[in-house]
């Protein structure tokens, strides 16, 4: 480039020189300057200078042309789809061809390398985009999972500021204006958690600490959490206020605590129930062993009492085991299509003697319909006997117990109604609790306080029905069992709400 421009300056200089020489020659001729040799020399000098300038300009022009052409070739060469060879073949032969070709090859190589790199970069970008999208969706997923997690989660940076919480953790926070990174100590309500988080934030080494936290929220509800707090490594060398330092996951262990408490209460009541007959046995055995009882009749009486207490203990253990067996699912439930009425009739037969012994009228008012239920016969029979014998137990002599069955809105229903002592509202609520015995009636009959819980479990958990009680103190009680009818039956009823009131003789098959 510099060379061509200097050549152009030279050519321009030559042209000026030739013009000056020609002007000098012409001027000399015009003034009649005689020695013609001066004209000749001036003219020749001017002509030569003109020629030199012309040659220089031509050369320059050719070079420019060649450069232009080369560029065109180059352009053609680099245009996708054109064959470089073809373009090269059209290049006019000349002094520049070889050198140009060499240069051109280099350029072509460079261009193709560049093109390859471009393609690579394109490829890379596509891949990165795919990865980015995948990461975004993964992030979304993680966020959804963490947000949906029932366990509260909190993350703090090393300055003890709250960087992230999931929605479950918001119960722990003071409701206030959204702040970007509030200090944990200011927004977390539970002081024990704040203390734990602070300890962990200030800790220098990584590690995890697990602590149980009891916290009563402002509404007065007590929460139990097992907090697992992890101190993360320093991570990067450039501390950043968004970098996580401490992550806490809180598991709600309230249910577990309640379960533990219920279990302890259960064990306590079992032991209480067992200690009472044991106390009798121990006392009488000691009296007899110490030879305190001389009178043979009293001795016999004491032996009978001991036997009675042993029986009571045995019954209690039996009932407990039954309950545990059924609750644990150890007992195989053998459900079959059964006639509810048939089971109830059997239960009546079993309880009849006890009722007669107490001069209680035991009446049956069974549905004329065939109540088809899908049940475990033994379990349901046990339940019916249990309810009937309870009714007999807690009804004074001369009273009445009625067993009814009927079809009621897709359910087979039976109820045991007595004219007994009845239950208070509180007793009605609690009568299905294990070991709950109505205090005032405890002396009317012996019982373990496990019969009704067992019946409820059989009806509700094993058979998907319901067992409820309605009672009025001093007037009597009604225990009602509802069992789902076997589907076949009510499908024939065209899904209508068939009840016993619209008795169809055809339906009783």
């Amino acid at each position, binding site marked *: 480039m510099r060379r061509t421009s200097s050549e152009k300056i030279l050519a321009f200089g030559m042209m000026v020189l030739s013009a000056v020489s020609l002007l000098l020659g012409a001027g000399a001729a015009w003034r009649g300057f005689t020695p013609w040799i001066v004209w000749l020399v001036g003219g020749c000098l001017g002509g030569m200078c003109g020629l030199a300038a012309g040659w220089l300009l031509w050369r320059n022009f050719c070079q420019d042309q060649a450069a232009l052409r080369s560029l065109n070739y180059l352009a053609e060469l680099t245009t996708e789809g054109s064959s470089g060879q073809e373009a090269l073949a059209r290049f006019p032969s000349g002094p520049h061809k070889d050198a140009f070709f060499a240069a051109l090859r280099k350029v072509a190589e460079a261009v193709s390398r560049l093109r390859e790199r471009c393609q690579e970069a394109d490829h890379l970008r596509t891949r990165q985009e795919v990865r980015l999208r995948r990461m975004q969706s993964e992030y979304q997923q993680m966020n959804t999972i963490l947000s949906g997690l029932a366990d509260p989660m909190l993350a703090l940076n090393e300055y003890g500021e709250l960087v992230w919480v999931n929605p479950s953790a918001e119960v722990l926070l003071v409701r206030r204006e959204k702040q970007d990174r509030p200090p944990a100590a200011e927004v977390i309500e539970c002081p024990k958690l704040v203390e734990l988080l602070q300890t962990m934030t200030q800790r220098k080494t990584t590690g995890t600490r697990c602590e149980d936290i009891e916290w009563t929220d402002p509404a007065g509800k007590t929460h139990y959490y097992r907090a697992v707090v992890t101190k993360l490594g320093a991570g990067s060398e450039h501390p950043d206020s968004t970098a996580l330092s401490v992550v806490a996951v809180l598991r709600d262990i309230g249910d577990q605590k309640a379960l533990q408490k219920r279990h302890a209460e259960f064990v*306590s009541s079992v032991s*209480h129930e067992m200690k*009472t007959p044991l106390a*009798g046995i121990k*006392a009488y055995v000691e009296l007899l062993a110490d030879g*305190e*009882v001389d009178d043979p009749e*009293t001795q016999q009486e004491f032996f009978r*009492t001991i036997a009675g207490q042993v029986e009571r203990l045995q019954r209690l253990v039996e009932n407990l085991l039954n309950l545990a067996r059924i609750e644990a699912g150890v007992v195989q439930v053998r459900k079959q299509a059964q006639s509810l009425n048939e089971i109830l009739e059997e239960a009546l037969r079993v309880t009849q003697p006890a009722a007669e012994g107490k001069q209680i009228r035991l009446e049956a008012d069974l549905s004329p319909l065939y109540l088809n239920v899908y049940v475990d016969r033994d379990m349901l029979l046990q339940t019916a006997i249990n309810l009937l014998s309870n009714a007999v137990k807690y009804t004074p002599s001369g009273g009445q117990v009625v067993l009814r069955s009927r079809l009621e809105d897709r359910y087979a229903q039976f109820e045991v109604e007595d004219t007994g002592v009845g239950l208070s509202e509180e007793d009605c609520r609690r009568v299905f609790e294990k070991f709950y015995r109505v205090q005032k009636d405890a*002396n009317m009959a012996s019982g373990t306080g496990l019969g009704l819980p067992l019946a409820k479990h059989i009806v509700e958990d094993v058979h998907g029905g319901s067992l409820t009680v309605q009672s009025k103190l001093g007037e009597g009680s009604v225990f009602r069992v509802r069992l789902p009818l076997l589907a076949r039956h009510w499908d024939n009823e065209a899904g209508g709400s068939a009840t016993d009131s619209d008795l169809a003789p055809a339906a009783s098959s």
Partner: protein
Amino acid sequence: MPKRLLLCDDEIAILRAAEFKLKKAGYEVHIASDGQAGWELIQRLRPDMVITDCQMPRMNGLELVQRIRSEPSLQNLPVVMLTAKGFELRPEELAQKWNVLAVVAKPFSPRELLQMVDRILGAAAEGAAVGPIPAETSYPESAGPRPDLASFSSAWDGQPL
């Protein structure tokens, strides 16, 4: 004149056993099957000592003790409680608050119950102040081997472990 005792328990078998033992030892024994009946007997008979169960219909043992202590003339009536409860009761608290001399865990030995009655009434006869009975006799369960409950956080015998 024999000392007069009142026994309160809703379990007739236990009542009969204790009554038999104490009567044989020469005490005059009256029985009641619930707290309310017990309270009526206390007012009527003015017994020298009351032995009552905790869980009873109508009026439970604790209510009966509270009723007794609310009566100025019965402040020093010796009271012993029988219980089949596990760990809900705190004998120290009962002793401190209601001056219950001892809490006897069921199943109990009639022989030991008699010894305790003898000691309490003997001490009372000598005019000595009747203080709470030492823990071994008052609550036999706590003298027995304790289960290894290192991991158990509940209270046992009323004392946190």
